[in-house]
């Protein structure tokens, strides 16, 4: 069939073109990392490495549910060339093409709102206290396609606890960088920029939620939301906000970018749900990228046992 792809060489074994062309810079930064590593043994900081470089000190992932899966992983090539990242253009191929020169270093993350420890962090300091771990999650896009991706990151709950949210912190809001000079997609008002997403505090504290800094053992490619993105596998892909610069704790539910764009189509929760109809796409089935026939979509993307209790009392037709 014409959709078959050659599989002789795993895409992860091929030297990334960008890395090849930037090999001098890579060697320099590797030297820099080596000296940093001498100061902080055993820990390679993602912020200090070039996108696409190997992350060290990662706790290996498991194929056991719920933090892993034995389903076939989507190829590195497909994960990094088929992206929805409107900041770099609306076509699936745009982000990989348009984000090549995106600068993710230096990168700061602002933590504010209902927390005892608001601060502005350098990404390195933001990540430093935590051990990176690999998690193999399903990703289900609202457009009815899906992937299986080995992420590298930190449980969101661990980070949230560090800031000591106050009793008023009922929601967490995330914001993407707003920089039209670097993000050409932001020069047009396709969405209201910057991109904003949010979680209820109990969702943010759920052990499945993570902040990712890498995939396939390497730092995140720019088109996948470098250097820091959210991963909430039981929700539609657009909840997984990319290139995060701000985390704000709120008492009231924030309005997300897609809620503002189409309130009748995109709700705050956006939990994967095959039974709730969407005006554009049937959510009953999905096409796993790399596969031909569609498969049935699972409630909460197959994480119902883990997350179902958070929504037990809610009318999911209303809170879609």
């Amino acid at each position, binding site marked *: 069939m014409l959709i078959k792809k050659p599989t002789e060489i795993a895409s992860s074994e091929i030297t990334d073109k960008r890395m090849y062309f930037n090999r001098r810079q890579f060697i320099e930064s590797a030297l820099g990392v080596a000296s940093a590593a001498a100061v902080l043994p055993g820990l390679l900081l993602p912020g200090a490495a070039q996108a696409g470089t190997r992350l060290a000190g990662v706790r290996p992932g498991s194929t056991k549910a719920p933090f892993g899966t034995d389903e076939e992983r989507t190829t590195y090539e497909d994960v990094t060339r088929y992206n929805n990242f409107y900041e770099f253009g*609306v076509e699936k191929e745009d982000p990989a093409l348009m984000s090549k020169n995106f600068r993710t270093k230096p990168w700061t993350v602002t933590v504010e709102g209902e927390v005892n420890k608001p601060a502005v962090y350098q990404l390195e300091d933001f990540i430093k206290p935590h051990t990176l771990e690999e998690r193999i999650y399903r990703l289900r896009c609202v457009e009815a396609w899906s992937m299986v991706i080995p992420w590298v990151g930190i449980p969101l709950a661990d980070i949230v606890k560090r800031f000591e949210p106050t009793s008023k912190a009922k929601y967490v809001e995330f914001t993407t960088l707003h920089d039209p000079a670097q993000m050409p997609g932001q020069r047009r008002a396709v*969405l209201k920029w910057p991109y904003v997403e949010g979680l209820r505090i109990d969702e943010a504290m759920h052990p499945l939620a993570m902040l990712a800094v890498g995939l396939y053992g390497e730092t995140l490619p720019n088109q996948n939301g470098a250097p820091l993105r959210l991963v909430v596998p039981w929700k539609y892909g657009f909840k997984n906000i990319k290139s995060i610069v701000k985390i704000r704790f709120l008492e009231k539910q924030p309005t997300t970018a897609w809620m503002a764009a189409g309130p009748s189509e995109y709700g705050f929760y956006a939990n994967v749900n095959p039974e709730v109809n969407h005006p554009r796409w*049937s959510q009953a089935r999905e096409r796993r990228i790399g596969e031909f026939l569609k498969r049935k979509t699972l409630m909460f993307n197959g994480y119902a046992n883990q997350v179902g209790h958070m929504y037990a009392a809610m009318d999911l037709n209303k809170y879609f």
Partner: protein
Amino acid sequence: MRPWILISTFNMTQQEWIERVVKPALFMVCLIPLALITWDAFNNQLGANPIEKIMRRTGDWTLRFLFITLTITPARQLLNMPWLIKLRRMLGLFAFFYALLHFTNYIWLDQFFDADEIIKDVIKRKYITIGFACFLMLIPLAITSTNNMVKRLGGKRWQKLHKSVYVISIGGVIHYLWLVKKDLGEPLIYAALLAILLGYRIWRYLRKKAPQTPQNTMSPIG
């Protein structure tokens, strides 16, 4: 300069030139989009989601061929090239051909003949409803495209039937507008082009209604 003037030294009439040279060449040109899609498919150039890509490209070309077909009448009138009408039928049939590929891709590769899901899709998703309706409306136009059918229907009735291509084109653009998640840029370009093509016809019609306009002797065949 009329090309057939050059050719006529080879004892070819304009009619022969169109039949033997222009039409076969145009036929081959109209197949290029399909050839490119096929080439990309066999060379793994359709990206991570090939079925979606085929859907997009066959849909794009359906609209483009519809618009090219709708350009024939203004072009022959404005450029004074009446012979262009002889190419219109083939272009219209190619619009149907790409629509058929688009439809087949949906039924076969995308839904894999899941009648249940297809029926639900057609009923529930308004952009599919309108796309499906437009495809159905194209079928009678394709069937009645032969000279024989024009004769059987009679020029007037045939022309009346084929005016539905205006509705189909509007429906096609709405189909595109409604399916896009957020960025309306490209569908709006199509909408603007269609507004020009249909606007021209409204302008002609209004001018024709004014008493001094010469009689339009347009042949329905083509």
